[in-house]
């Protein structure tokens, strides 16, 4: 199994550009999450989903959107990139809310 796959691994965006960070898992996990990790900080939850068609906001959702049309995929959309969104983004999944996560390898995003 591939686990949780994130693409791209690196990206540089100009202010005001848009992009979608892709996340896919092949473990049939219901729960999926997007976190951002700023330098020297822990992970902050952006959005999460408990199943296809269901999404909810986390701690820092402003400037982002998500969708969950299938169990496998949970893309994160940045509509108008801002320098404050420079961060490393992690996608994670879990079969239930009780178990620990399986993380993707992260996407390093720089907005200039």
């Amino acid at each position, binding site marked *: 199994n591939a686990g949780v796959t994130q693409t791209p691994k690196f990206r540089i965006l100009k202010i005001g550009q848009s992009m979608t960070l892709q996340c896919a898992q092949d473990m049939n996990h219901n729960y999926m999450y997007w976190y951002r990790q700023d330098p020297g900080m822990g992970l902050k939850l952006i959005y999460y989903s408990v199943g296809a068609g269901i999404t909810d906001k986390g701690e820092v959702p402003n400037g982002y959107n998500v969708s969950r049309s299938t169990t496998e995929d949970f893309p994160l959309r940045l509509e108008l990139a801002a320098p404050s969104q420079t961060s490393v983004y992690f996608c994670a999944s879990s079969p239930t809310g009780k178990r*620990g*996560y399986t993380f993707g390898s992260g996407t390093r995003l720089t907005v200039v």
Partner: protein
Amino acid sequence: AQTVTQSQPEMSVQEAETVTLSCTYDTSESDYYLFWYKQPPSRQMILVIRQEAYKQQNATENRFSVNFQKAAKSFSLKISDSQLGDAAMYFCAYRIATTSGTYKYIFGTGTRLKVLA
């Protein structure tokens, strides 16, 4: 507010020695889960160990063990016989229930562990 505090930004340990990373948390719940994650330079987040709050016995996974003090809201990670491959950022995390009946995790700010040869 639910918070997780890791008061040690950085720790060092000699190879083969033992090191303890501290974590405290704040919660009003009685049933919850605590986790330690490892993040090596590859950036991959790896689950190290998990503790259920209703279990009095401390969790262990090979060289990794926890000291769970529920009354003190403390959840420290002990790494025995430290190896060079243990060098990483270690994050403590606490699982909370959301208002919609699901779960999410609160992470601490991390402790960078250096292992000295």
